[in-house]
């Protein structure tokens, strides 16, 4: 703080703690904010209220037993959590995945991306003050996808659907028609959402040039996901690692220029349109029949608590809707993992929350936190 002229005494700083019980912190997350009037002078995030020591739990259970716990990491996109964990174990134990299971996995991952981005836009508008209308439109569309998840995996949010080497069960009888229906009118819903929001002057003036994140700081602070791409860095793990069968689909990666809250909002809308393109291609290429669990996978699933992967360590990562979600597993040959570490995107994306909020208003801090899209299950593990 530049030392202002002698006669004006130091400005009356207001120490406010936003959270952990606050209407718009997406869960139990606290920000100790020091305000000079309405502008933020200092911001210290405090977390750990939802810490369940998921990693120690996983070290005392068999590999399959911690699969349902990965649903509870980022409870909005449980399918992608399962996907990342399944890939990590497959890399560790060298299990192959049959053709149809790969297609089902990409189908589930892209549907989860649609859910996550739609919900995020809804909650971002809630932080901006729109009285729940965009959120409830988002929920209305999410219900259709969740019905499909319930029909295939058995549970709407806690799917526990992926197994090492494939998936638990094939699509139900009417499954393909349900997906076709969802994909067909999702782009119509996105047009309605954009008509409601994108050209809204109040939204634009509230979000443009707020919480700007430069390219260099984003890369240096290992930010991943839509926030990184909104700052203009072209890094999408689906394109970099080409894991699973993503190389068979032709889709673009939208990049922003300024890297502020408005870019993060609009990059997510464009990513949803790309996901719809992937789903359309997937529906055309998907083989009608095929086994959904490879031989090695079936062996692992027969008696999970006896199954012993070879010793060694492996790091599997995917492009989850919030960023790079990775699992680092060390196995010592016993049925229980020796070390089980989750690399959560939300936890690392808030490292530079303070840099984005300095000098902004209180209302902006809430909006920036909303645009960073954190889920506390994943931050605290």
């Amino acid at each position, binding site marked *: 703080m530049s030392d202002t002229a002698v006669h004006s005494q130091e400005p009356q700083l207001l120490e406010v703690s936003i959270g952990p019980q606050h209407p718009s912190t997406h869960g139990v997350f606290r920000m100790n904010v020091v305000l000079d009037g309405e502008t933020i002078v200092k911001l210290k995030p405090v*977390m*750990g209220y939802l*810490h369940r*020591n998921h*990693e*120690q739990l996983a070290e005392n259970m068999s590999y399959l037993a911690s699969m349902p716990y990965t649903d509870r990491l980022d409870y909005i996109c449980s399918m992608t959590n399962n996907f990342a964990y399944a890939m990590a174990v497959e890399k560790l134990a060298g299990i192959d995945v049959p053709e149809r299971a790969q297609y089902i996995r990409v189908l589930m991952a892209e549907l989860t991306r649609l859910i996550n981005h739609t919900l995020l836009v809804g909650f971002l508008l809630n932080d901006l003050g729109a009285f729940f209308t965009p959120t409830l439109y988002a929920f209305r569309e999410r219900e259709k996808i969740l019905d499909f998840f319930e029909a295939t995996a058995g549970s709407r949010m806690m799917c526990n659907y992926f197994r090492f080497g494939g998936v638990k069960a094939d699509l139900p009888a009417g499954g393909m028609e349900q997906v076709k229906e969802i994909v067909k009118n999702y782009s119509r819903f996105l047009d309605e959402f954009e008509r409601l929001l994108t050209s809204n002057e109040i939204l634009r003036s509230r979000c443009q040039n707020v919480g700007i994140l430069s390219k260099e*700081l984003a*890369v*240096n*602070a*290992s*930010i*991943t996901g839509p926030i990184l791409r909104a700052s203009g*860095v072209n*890094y999408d793990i689906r394109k*970099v690692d080409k894991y699973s069968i993503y190389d068979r689909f032709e889709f673009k990666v939208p990049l922003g220029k300024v890297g502020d809250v408005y870019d993060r909002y609009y990059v997510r809308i464009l990513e949803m349109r790309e996901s719809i393109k992937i789903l359309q291609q997937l529906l055309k290429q998907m083989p009608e029949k095929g086994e959904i669990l490879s031989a090695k996978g079936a062996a692992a699933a027969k008696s999970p608590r006896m199954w012993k992967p*070879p*010793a*060694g*360590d492996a*790091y599997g*990562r995917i492009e989850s809707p919030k960023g*790079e979600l*990775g699992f*680092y597993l*060390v196995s*010592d*040959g016993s049925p229980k993992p*020796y*070390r089980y*570490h989750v*690399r959560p995107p939300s*936890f*690392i994306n*808030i*490292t*530079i929350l303070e840099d984005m909020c300095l000098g902004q208003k209180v209302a902006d801090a809430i909006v920036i936190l909303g645009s960073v899209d954190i889920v506390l299950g994943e931050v*605290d*593990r």
Partner: protein
Amino acid sequence: MNVEEIKNDLLKHVPGLELTVEGESFIVPKEKLLEAARFLKENEKYRMDYLSCVTGVDYLAQAARLGQPGQAAVGGQSELASGYLESVNHLYSMEKKHGPIVLKVRVPRSDPRMPSLVPLYRGAEYQEREAYDLLGIIYEGHPDLRRILMWDEFEGHPLRKDYVEEDQDIR
């Protein structure tokens, strides 16, 4: 980007570095970690500008001695044989989009201090604080090393293999 090529480049450019290769990863002595990481970050060929994941792992004495199958037994440095704490860093390049280079640093459990990577990568800040909080690895040079997930008055490091949870509610 095979392991041999990286090993030779590292040995060539970082003076006085004795490197052991374990499967895909490199065991770097803690004194040379910052130099090796800086070389990998600035060198034109690699440009490893993205530190994806920092993990702390705790190897107890018997696990260390018998050595993980597929990992070299650690009999060599005597004080490490009594069990060591390991910090695994996965480095990627966002610019050149090429695969992970894994740097591992091992410190004995009795003196768990190692240099922090925060001066090079801001992304390591929270992950190193978590490794300190749950495993007790002290990162020197970390701007603000305090507990991140547990509450500040918590004693002990829960993820250590020899962590015994004291029973508060013995009725």
